[in-house]
């Protein structure tokens, strides 16, 4: 037998200024299940809460309705108050007579009448509520980090240092990502590898981190606290423990290949190679597509010279299955291909290179040993044009701004002038975006110290004439077209994310540009809409290294929030299945945005810990087998009746 308590708040004059609160109390008392009703000026205050607690104990109330502001404001407040008086928190409901009533109506008669209906409606709901318990689920204390670039490395270290196991999955043969390809980083001009490799080494020797390179995540099931992950580990053909990097194998390998990945096609390597000397794990790898010895006995030159017997040409792929409690996605980026830009040659001019290629050319561990030589003939370019915004801010290619190009182009021009002091550098820009700490000062330094010429105007066309490239641009400030013959052109290509496959596997959304969608752009930038999956780095949006690192630590802290608990609890307002009505049609499993419904031989099963209570499956179920806890159809109909003032008297049960 329900004994409902109704508490009507004045909220100062917010409610009482329009609504006749005394009348609302009076009318509430007329409801057959209401045992007690009162009003007070500020229900959410300590005094107000006390009134509620006293009433619960004194009158043995079984449910309460607080008619006040929006539940988003104070539902938790009143639930907690009720709980400490011994009442189940899910027997507490709020009737919003402020935002939905007194704040939007001026006529007191209308507002009071509506308040009465709202209160009756809420009473009709709360009497049907069941006293629920929060849902609990165990947490596996292990974190999966997808992507071994600087963001993935930072996240892995943060989680591992907090005492939890980390599995770091990287698809290339080494961790390090894009940062390992850079020569120096802005604005400090630190040598990129010098600041990166210590972190890479830390990851390598950390007892809590297990690195899987040449690996990709191929399947993920389950939900927060317990994700079931399948990883495909491609064969390296070299034993990581045994290899001592003596490089004898490389010397005898007969197969020469273009180094498309690390050195962006600027140089060649062998089929057995290391991407760069400080690679982690420190071992050689065989490029199976280009080696004609793997899996056969056609060639085994490398095996013959390996003193450590580290090479196994019959190595195979492995599928690794593991359970984790949280996942961090940090899959990084690639450059928009210059082959798509027709007016700059569709990628056919050898001396028109992209920014990462330029980094490789000036890096001391690069293909030219840090001497800037142009790809076509190896000459030192005496005049270089740097073009910003290639592919970015362009409705025909990428509509967004890639954020890092203004800064790195300034860095490139500056470094160029240091390497070739008698050379000329021209930067063609539309704007200069230098929003980070000390970034504007860096731009000023570049512009004043290094005599780099900044010209505001986009380049319309580049043509090859003999051994020179002619740049057709315009100086929008003077209004004059410019035709500039240069030796080399560096295109600041836009950045694009690598998220298509992983987003599908994790079933997390990506936005219209392919970047991973965050839960809220301002207030939840590292969480995906799926609980337990977090985002870090450029995969979520274009950003520089310092923001990637910051975001990685943020994602790590969110992961630690989950991993540090033995169990996680969540709201029990979840979907439920009436197995007798379920026809196993499967519509619910396809529609659920949170992957919280699975089909079993006995019918649909809701994974309560993943369910967010959105109601999509409930609405779609053709058999009516699904319902939402405490939002049963019976309750809703009674609520509607009260709102329409049909007010039938619910049966006294």
């Amino acid at each position, binding site marked *: 037998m329900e004994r409902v308590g109704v508490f009507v708040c004045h909220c100062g004059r917010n409610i009482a200024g329009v609504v006749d609160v005394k009348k609302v109390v009076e009318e509430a008392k007329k409801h057959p299940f209401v045992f007690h009703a009162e009003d007070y000026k500020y229900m959410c205050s300590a005094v107000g809460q006390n009134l509620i607690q006293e009433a619960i104990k004194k009158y043995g109330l079984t449910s309460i309705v607080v008619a006040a502001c929006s539940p988003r404001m104070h539902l938790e407040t009143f639930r907690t108050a009720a709980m400490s008086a011994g009442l189940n928190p899910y027997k507490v409901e709020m009737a919003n007579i402020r935002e939905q009533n007194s704040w939007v109506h001026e006529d007191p008669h209308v507002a009071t009448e509506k308040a009465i209906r709202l209160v009756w409606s809420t009473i009709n709901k709360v009497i049907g509520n069941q006293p629920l318990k929060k849902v609990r689920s165990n947490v596996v204390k292990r974190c999966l980090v997808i992507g071994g670039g600087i963001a993935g490395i930072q996240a892995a270290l943060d989680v591992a240092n907090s005492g939890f196991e980390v599995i770091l999955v990287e698809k290339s043969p080494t961790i390090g990502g894009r940062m390992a390809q850079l020569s120096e980083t802005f604005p400090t001009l630190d040598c990129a590898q010098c600041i990166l490799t210590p972190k890479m080494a830390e990851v390598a020797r950390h007892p809590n981190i297990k690195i899987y390179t040449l690996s990709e995540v191929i399947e993920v099931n389950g939900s927060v606290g317990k994700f079931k992950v399948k990883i495909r580990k491609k064969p390296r053909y070299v034993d990581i423990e045994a290899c001592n990097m003596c490089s004898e194998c490389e010397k005898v390998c007969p197969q020469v290949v273009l180094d498309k990945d690390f050195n962006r096609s600027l140089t060649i390597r062998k089929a057995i190679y290391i991407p760069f000397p400080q690679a982690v794990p420190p071992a050689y790898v065989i490029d199976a597509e280009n080696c004609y010895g793997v899996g056969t006995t056609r060639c085994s030159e490398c095996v013959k010279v390996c003193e450590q017997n580290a090479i196994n040409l019959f190595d195979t792929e492995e599928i690794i299955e593991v359970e984790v409690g949280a996942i961090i996605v940090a899959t990084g980026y690639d450059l928009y291909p210059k082959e798509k830009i*027709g*007016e700059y040659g*569709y990628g056919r001019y050898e001396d028109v290179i992209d920014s990462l290629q330029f980094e490789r050319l000036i890096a001391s561990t690069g293909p030219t040993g840090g001497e800037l030589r142009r790809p076509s003939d190896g000459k030192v370019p005496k005049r270089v044009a740097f073009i910003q915004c290639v592919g970015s801010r362009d409705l025909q290619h990428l509509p967004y701004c890639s954020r890092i190009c203004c800064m790195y182009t300034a860095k490139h021009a500056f470094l160029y002038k240091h390497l070739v002091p008698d050379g000329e550098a021209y930067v063609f820009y539309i704007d200069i975006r230098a929003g980070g700490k000390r970034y504007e000062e860096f731009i000023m330094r570049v512009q004043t110290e290094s005599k780099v010429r900044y010209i505001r105007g986009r380049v319309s*066309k580049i*043509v090859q*004439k003999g051994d020179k490239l*002619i740049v057709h641009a315009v100086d929008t400030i003077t209004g004059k077209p410019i035709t500039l013959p240069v030796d080399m052109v560096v295109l600041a290509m836009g950045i694009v994310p690598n998220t298509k496959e992983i987003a599908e596997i994790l079933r997390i959304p990506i936005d219209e540009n392919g970047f991973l969608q965050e839960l809220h752009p301002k207030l939840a930038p590292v969480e995906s809409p799926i609980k337990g999956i977090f985002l870090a780095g450029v995969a979520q949006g274009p950003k520089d290294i310092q923001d990637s690192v910051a975001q990685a630590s943020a994602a790590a802290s969110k992961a630690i929030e989950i991993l540090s608990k033995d169990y996680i609890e969540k709201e029990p307002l979840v979907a439920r299945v009436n197995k007798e009505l379920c026809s196993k049609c499967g519509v619910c499993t396809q529609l659920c945005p949170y992957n919280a419904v699975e089909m079993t031989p006995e019918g649909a099963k809701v994974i309560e810990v993943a369910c967010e209570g959105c109601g999509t499956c409930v609405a779609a179920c053709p058999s009516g087998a699904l319902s939402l806890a405490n939002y049963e159809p019976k309750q809703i109909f009674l609520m509607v009746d009260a709102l329409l003032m049909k007010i039938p008297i619910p049966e006294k049960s």
Partner: protein
Amino acid sequence: MRILYYPGCTVKATAIRDEKASLAVLEALGFKIVEVEDWVCCGAVYNLPRDTVIQAVAPIRTLIRAESTMRKHKTSEILLTLCSMCNHVLKMADNMYRSDPDVAYKLDVYLSDEPNYEGKLKIMHFLEILRDLVGYDKIKEKVRRSLGGLKVASFYGCLLLRPREVAIDDSEDPIVIEEIMIQLGADPVDYPYRNECCGSYNVVRTPEYVWDRTKDIVESANDYGAEIIVTTCPLCAYNLEEGQKRRKKELKGREIPILYVSELVAYAFGLDDALEPEVKVLIDRMVRDRG
């Protein structure tokens, strides 16, 4: 295959060579050419402001007359154009008619003295027909005399390649003329001006501007080793030829003969009757001189 043919004013006047050669080539490739009856001027340029409907009357009238001919002579729906400007205008007007019902209605009212426009035509430029209906292989088969590695620079001009909705090839890197030249045994020359504008109708009001422009174009072609420049637009052909003459003193390098694509194709196919005698002699000499 029976196709409709819309000549346009200039092809019958200063560019008659183009018509002779093109029609001969197409007939050799098995097409039966049916000239549109009672054709009128197409308008040459497409009116860009969307409220200037009156300027679309001419191209739509042309298309209506073409449709009438199609019905009367039972030809296919393909409408051949030789001139880049006609091609451009007819396609743009056709698109506009199909996409904007308000404009279509207005045009129907203006043109109420003609039968209704049914929008059944497929407008194809000479180069499109060679590429899409004939195919490069078939062109190669028909070659009787190779051009012997003649260095040919193509000049597309602007209206064949832009705007994108009516372009016959990629605006930054078109290859259709180059591909045809390769089948004929010539050696295409890549130079930066091949997809750029010659100056167009500025030649009427401020011819000096055009001569400056075409001088640059010819010089560039020279720099990259071209011996001949081919084009399909009669206005480009005129501008390029006259420009060289008017700026003879300032021109660096030789003067380059300007020919129509169809003339080289006709020569390679051995269709000597379709060529002007001096053109045939010129090409003969150039091929021979290459050895």
